């Protein structure tokens, strides 16, 4: 019992201090754009609180949105890395732990257990887990070789297999599918894009705007096959044979799937946190458990799952302030999304879900100006293509935000 009252040796004191220190740490799980943006914003406000970033990959900083236009900007997997993990750690005065996997989060004890058994205590933990690419079940010997590009390592694999490739089939004519199709043109590859819908960006654009985009991308060399799905992908000596649901066949050196994202929620679910489509958080970006927060592609913020950069920036700024001691609700102004299809410059500002309105579409010389308006003519959202994109700033200022 005397141990309890015995004066501590300097070494023991240091150890106690270090323990107290780590228990006061902010721990971010994930080193993608969400994790690092939050870290950067947090450090602008709080230079001292211990900060740890846990990454299941290398922890190098890169910008995921750039993966779908890397060919056009002559970037390789190596040059896409803007800063290696060590440099990020130094700049952020943070501990960046690469190649670690989280086993579970114990919210009652405020500690994270890593695969391997190491325990990481926290003051606050932030889930910046990102999203997984959706996969549809496909038959055939080549189904397992279908690629998706969801992170830098995926991109490296994709780029490697692209060496010498002449033809690519892309599954999905959404944002990512269209962006990759456009980007591949810079390699002289005229890809074929397959989608179940009847037009590109069918969830974001009114039909005439989709038609304009399609025309521009087709003129640039992209081919589309709509109202179709993939039946099977068979490996051939030269590449792949992709059989579509109308029994037609496409030959390709590479098959890329870009059909959508699903927020990563498994860790949150296992920790007993509320999960819906994403990890459920309020406008303070806090989950159903205090001291556990989430942002970016894994988060469902006040009912919205928005896997885009602009909302992520807003979330990071608000959460950084909250973590630094000033409770701050996230605000969503109008947040137009730039579609990286240089063959047809496109910007989309989606109306809030359940907003009631109608599209008014004007086809102008070399452009398409589509406005989603309420009964009084108030602007709820828009899509601007080609020459109409010059209206972007003007219209953005007129659209009400989703969370004000």
């Amino acid at each position, binding site marked *: 019992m005397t141990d309890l009252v015995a004066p501590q040796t300097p070494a023991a004191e240091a150890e106690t201090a270090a323990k107290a220190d780590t228990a006061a740490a902010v721990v971010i799980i994930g080193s993608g754009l969400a994790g690092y943006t939050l870290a950067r914003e947090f450090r602008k406000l709080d230079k001292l609180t211990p900060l740890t970033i846990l990454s299941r990959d290398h922890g190098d900083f890169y910008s995921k949105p750039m993966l779908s236009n890397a060919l056009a900007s002559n970037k390789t997997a190596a040059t896409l890395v803007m800063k290696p993990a060590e440099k990020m750690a130094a700049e952020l005065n943070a501990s960046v732990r690469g190649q670690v996997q989280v086993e579970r989060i114990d919210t009652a004890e405020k500690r994270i257990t890593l695969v391997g058994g190491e325990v990481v205590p926290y003051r606050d933990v932030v889930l910046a887990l990102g999203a997984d690419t959706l996969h549809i079940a496909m038959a055939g010997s080549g189904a397992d070789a279908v690629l998706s590009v969801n992170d830098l390592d995926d991109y490296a694999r994709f780029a490697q297999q692209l060496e010498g490739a002449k033809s690519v089939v892309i599954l999905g004519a959404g944002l990512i599918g269209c962006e990759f199709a456009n980007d591949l043109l810079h390699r002289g590859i005229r890809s074929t894009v397959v989608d179940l819908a009847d037009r590109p960006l069918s969830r974001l654009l009114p039909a005439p705007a989709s038609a304009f985009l399609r025309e521009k991308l087709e003129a640039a060399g992209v081919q589309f096959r709509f109202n179709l799905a993939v039946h099977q992908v068979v490996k051939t000596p030269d590449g792949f044979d992709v059989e579509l649901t109308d029994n037609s066949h496409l030959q390709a050196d590479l098959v890329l799937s870009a059909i959508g994202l699903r927020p990563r929620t498994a860790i949150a679910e296992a920790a007993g946190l509320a999960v819906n489509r994403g990890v459920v958080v309020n406008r303070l970006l806090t989950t159903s458990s205090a001291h556990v927060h989430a942002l970016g592609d894994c988060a469902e913020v006040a009912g919205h799952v928005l896997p885009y950069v602009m909302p992520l*920036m807003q979330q990071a700024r608000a959460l950084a302030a909250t973590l630094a001691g000033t409770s701050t609700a996230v605000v969503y102004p109008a947040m137009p999304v730039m579609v990286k299809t240089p063959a047809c410059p496109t910007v989309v500002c989606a109306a809030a879900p359940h907003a009631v309105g109608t599209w008014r579409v004007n086809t102008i010389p070399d452009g398409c100006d589509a406005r989603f308006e309420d009964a009084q003519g108030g602007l709820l959202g828009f899509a601007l293509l080609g020459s109409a994109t010059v209206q972007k*700033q003007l219209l953005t200022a007129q659209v009400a935000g989703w969370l004000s």
Partner: protein
Amino acid sequence: MKTYQCIVCSFIYDEAEGMPEDGIAPGTLWTDVPADWMCPDCGVSKADFEMIEI
């Protein structure tokens, strides 16, 4: 005149061109762009832009 690139979305600010639609006249030096200015494409703050050598 120099150019600066957004670290997130690769948007480029070119001092020579400015951003007239954002109220920034052609020829506006990066140092004279307001501190609260944000990348028009992705919302990154001015502090997180980087200079590109040209």
